[in-house]
């Protein structure tokens, strides 16, 4: 502020010498920018300490062969951990599982979320309560959600699903082992539907009423209005939801840990990247394989993220423009 005042007072004197003003301006601009950034520094330093330092340590271990159960194994081995991980059929399966799990959970929760958003967008008695109840699953800790599903939904003794299928004469089904991947996906859909609903709801509420009225005047029915006006408008919001949902669901761990421990199907049907790394470190105590798998996943994620972020920034530019 005082800088700005000083500059203003100097203005008349400087008027005759534009060259000198131009020289001073960049440095004071830079200083101002840094002063503005100063409060950000603690957070930035903190971020570097908690994310980049561990990443460098991970990188270091990925080139070694440290299995803590084998004393003396901590040696430099070059890329051997990487080739072990890449040639591990379980790692390749983990890639497929990660894609299947993420894609099905994101798509299903988006479909459900959009439907609920359309319902919630109407005015009715108790809308606030219904909306709060619909948002709640998103606020529950993943591990708690996993436990809830394990005992009250899938469980053999208190599980509601077994009770429902018993009406149709079907005996006990061990959901978490017979249908391991769908069981985990169902939990994820339950958690992430509210998130999708909120994003789509934001889109619905920003719709231009004039356009909708005009459509009504032109004789369009509700379905036509939705397909031709609402949906194109919502597309950006849906894309945003899909993107953010994918970023989070790709990291799923707690639900798998509680429900299946990575098992099911051929024995690894729910081992995604996150769980694969956990297994390498916790079960095998092979920190180097875990680190190498982590580095590979980070590289793959970075490549996808570059495209995804480009799409995301594109979305915002369009959103700012409207």
């Amino acid at each position, binding site marked *: 502020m005082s800088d700005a005042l000083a500059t203003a007072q100097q203005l008349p004197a400087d008027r005759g010498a534009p060259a000198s003003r131009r020289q001073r301006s960049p440095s004071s601009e830079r200083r101002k920018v840094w002063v503005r950034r100063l409060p950000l520094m*603690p957070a*930035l330093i903190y971020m570097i300490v908690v994310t980049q330092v561990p990443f460098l340590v991970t990188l270091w271990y990925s080139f070694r062969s440290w299995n803590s159960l*084998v004393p003396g194994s901590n040696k430099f081995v070059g890329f051997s951990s990487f080739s072990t991980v890449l040639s591990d059929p379980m790692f390749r399966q983990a890639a497929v599982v990660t894609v299947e799990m993420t894609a099905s959970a994101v798509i299903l929760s988006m479909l459900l979320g959009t439907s609920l958003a359309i319902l919630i967008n109407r005015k009715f008695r108790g809308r606030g309560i219904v909306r709060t109840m619909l948002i709640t699953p998103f606020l529950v800790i993943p591990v708690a959600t996993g436990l809830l599903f394990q005992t009250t939904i899938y469980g*053999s003794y208190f599980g509601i699903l077994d009770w429902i299928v018993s009406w149709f004469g079907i005996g006990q089904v061990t959901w978490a082992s*017979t249908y391991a991947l769908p069981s985990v996906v169902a939990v994820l859909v339950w958690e992430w539907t509210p998130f999708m609903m909120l994003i789509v709801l934001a889109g619905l509420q920003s719709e231009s009423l004039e356009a909708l009225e005009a459509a009504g005047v032109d004789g369009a029915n509700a379905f036509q209005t939705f397909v031709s006006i609402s949906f194109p408008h919502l597309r950006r919001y849906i894309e945003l939801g899909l993107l953010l949902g994918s970023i989070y669901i790709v990291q799923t761990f707690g639900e798998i840990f509680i429900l299946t421990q990575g098992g099911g199907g051929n*024995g690894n049907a729910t081992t995604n990247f996150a769980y694969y790394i956990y297994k390498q470190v916790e079960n095998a105590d092979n920190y180097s394989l875990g680190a190498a798998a982590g580095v590979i996943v980070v590289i793959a994620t970075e490549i996808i993220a570059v495209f995804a972020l480009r799409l995301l920034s594109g979305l915002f530019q369009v959103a700012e423009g409207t």
Partner: protein
Amino acid sequence: MYKMRRSLALSAGPRASRKLGNAPRRRKIGFLAGAIAMVAALGGTYAGFAQANSVKKSGKTVTIKIAIESNSNMLNIENLIGEFYKLYPGIKVDFDTLNENNERALVETDVSTHANEFNAVMISNYETPIWAKNGWLQNLTPALTADTSYDINDLLKPIRDSLSYKGNLYSVPFYGESSMLYYRKSILAAAGETMPLHPTWAQVAAIAAKVNTPSVAGICLRGVNGWGDNLAVMDTIVNTFGGSWFNDKWQPQLTSTPDEQAWNFYVNLIKAAGESGASQDNFPQCETLYGEGKAAMWYDATVAAGLITTTYPTVGADTGYAYAPTGNATTGASGVHSGWLYTWSLSIPKGVGEQADTLKFLEWATSKQYLDYSGTQTKVGGQPFGWADINPGTRYSTYSNPNYQKAAAAFYKITLNSINTATPAHSTDPNVAIPYGGVQFVDEPWFINLGNEVSNNLEAAIAGTETVTQALATSQTEAKAAVTSAGLLK
């Protein structure tokens, strides 16, 4: 918290959602998150100092932290710890109780990386010799021999040997067990069947099929994944079928005929007469099913005998006890004694602090005094308790105690004999050469990972999402990879 804030901002409508792309706001949130984290970190540090100070200043109270597994035997000692405090007012015991797989993983990481967060850890006869060999554990023999009141020679020899490395004890047994068969006398009698004291698996399968009804399963067996879960039971059957994990050249044997016969037998027995939902069941689930009368038989750890007797008195009174079934049910060959040998034990990792005080707790927890004290309790943690429930399988004095003999009359001899006759040095047919020790495990450091992978395949075969042949083929590949990377198989 940050995630929530962002989603709520979005829910507020288009204006807020636009702000997400707005740089200053993003910075503000980032700064806020950073500040909160910093404050939290500082708070944590301060709390740490405060705690350290209180211990140092008083100079009397020492807190020892112990990682334990969450079986009922361990929960009992948490409830009875008051007695220890009476003896040693200056020591406070802080239990970190976790379920089996988590406790194992946490402790293994803690000890193998020398993080030494715990003053003592609960491990088993699987870990003890391996870790002792690596030099990670404190040798307890000198201190325990010096303390005559502990009476180290009173510890059951097979259990003591399983916790020793080069003749020294590196872990003290909290309780020890083998495996045995439980059956309901009334149900078998109604079907006109009698269970021999030493049954074969063929007999057990035939009886299970006969007594199996939609409401009462013929037999309850473990199906859920985990090397100490479904695989522990499976391994004892593989052994008595004449199968093994590896031959003497470390070539995996999971696709060998006896292994395949054993796996098929187990999976088919569960399908034909096992409890429904077996692929998610473990010891606690079977205990509940059997105790509530929903299973006619149950093959599991001998430690369950005490639990059934006290927790489910009606079923307990009707329970018959038999040795672990033996024999190859497919070929009819008589197999080796198949009971497993297992003990949950307490160790002190090398380099941790407060070792003298920690040892006091270890001695007390595994002492004759603790067993006698707990035997006199009628209620622990609100649950009925008695002599039959004291930690079994650790001391000769337990088995010569008249109180225990009376309360555990129906089963104590089977437990003791099973422990004494378990063959951890060579678990399968004596004619089959094997390069490893352990009954329901392979005493190698890489086994936990392999065992867990193979147990996943077993669960899949029990759930029916894979055939036994597929499950064994996958297991064979995994076993080969394990011994190859360990440098055992060229």
